[in-house]
């Protein structure tokens, strides 16, 4: 969708999310000391928590600005099916917040002494996992649209739903770091989540938007 042009006009928003991720991830080695064993152990969890928070940070803005200037109403009134529009917006959101995290993942690996295989596993896991975060988050963003203090409510609604993704996402990285080679099951489950989210989230988001606009 044309959201990308808009995002290019506001590059700072995208960079904020990215830097947020880098800083959160960098804080842990500084706080927990630089002991190799500990860092290696917490790395997957830290990376995923940071990814969750970073994606959360940008979620609020997913529909809020469109809602404020009336363009959201206009979108609902176009002859395009709403779930396609939602899918487009979520895809744009993911391109700007999820995809950069995938590419920045090697930096995390470097800081946490992760072996190379674990880094590539993490990139793959983030590649599958971050679209789920965007899709599920969109439902919450649509529901909390126009509410005062919507940001906090959004976190309360969405973070519990992120837990399974984080468990398996971090699990696969840990497994790969300890040398397990059979990671198929983890990726199957993550992909299953993605397909489920891809099918259900746009419909739920479209319904939530209709309610919020009223």
């Amino acid at each position, binding site marked *: 969708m*044309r959201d990308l*042009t*808009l995002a290019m*006009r*506001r590059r700072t928003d995208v960079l904020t999310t990215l830097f947020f991720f880098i800083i959160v991830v960098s804080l842990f080695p500084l706080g927990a000391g630089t002991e190799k064993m500990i860092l290696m152990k917490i790395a997957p969890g830290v990376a995923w928590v940071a990814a969750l928070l970073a994606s959360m940070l940008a979620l609020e803005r997913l529909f809020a600005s469109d809602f*404020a*200037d*009336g*363009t959201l*109403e*206009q*979108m*609902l*009134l*176009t*002859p*395009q*099916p709403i779930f396609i*529009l939602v899918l487009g917006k979520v895809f744009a959101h993911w391109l700007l917040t999820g995809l950069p995290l995938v590419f920045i993942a090697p930096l995390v690996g470097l800081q946490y002494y992760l072996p190379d295989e674990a880094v590539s596993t993490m990139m793959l896991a983030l590649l599958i996992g971050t679209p789920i975060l965007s899709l599920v988050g969109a439902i919450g963003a649509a529901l909390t649209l126009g509410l005062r203090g919507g940001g906090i409510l959004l976190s309360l609604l969405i973070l519990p739903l992120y837990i399974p993704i984080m468990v398996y996402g971090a699990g696969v990285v840990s497994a790969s770091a300890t040398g397990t080679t059979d990671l198929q099951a983890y990726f199957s489950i993550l992909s299953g989540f993605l397909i489920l989210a891809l099918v259900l989230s746009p419909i739920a988001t479209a319904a939530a938007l209709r309610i919020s*606009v*009223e």
Partner: protein
Amino acid sequence: MLEITNLTCSRGDRQLFTGLNFSLKPGSLLYVEGRNGTGKSTLLRAICGLFLADSGDILWDGKNTQSLAEDYTKEVVYLGHHNGIKDDLSGLENLRISTVLDGDDVTEEQIWNALKKMGLKGFEDLPTKVLSQGQKRRVALARLLLNSSKLWILDEPFTALDVAAVDLLQSVIADHISKGGMVVLTTHQEVALTAGQIQRLELGKKKNKNV
């Protein structure tokens, strides 16, 4: 043709209007009147489907607009209190996006012409945040020129416009009506409309005067 039967709307606990009936034929203009808070905007939003009415039907060519869904939204243009344009984008980009989303086949040249006609020559490329209120409104109104929808729903279209722009908009509306279009309009300003067949609907009275 647009038909409203037994429409009832409320906001919160307050009932705005009950049992509202009217119909609008091609080539006519409906002028919705009433004091502040009588539900004019709500009625307009209900007609275009943004607001869910408590009861009653809104029929387009005899079919319920909710079941028509996209077939109905294709026929409607809504311009509300918000201009529905992105501040960071130029007028040109805003219109390009909205025409693509509306599914209208519009050339770049037509967009330039529409903006020129709305008196925005020389401002096409500027981000709309640097434009004045009236100019932003003009950008939003330029959408009307590029649209092939039959039903225009305009909520206070004359606000922030200067005299010349009001005249221009009136001629655009009159033109649309003469081509067999329909317009539903609210305004607090008394504006002489020189369009074809004019209907009036007054909200906020004890009994709705049906037209």
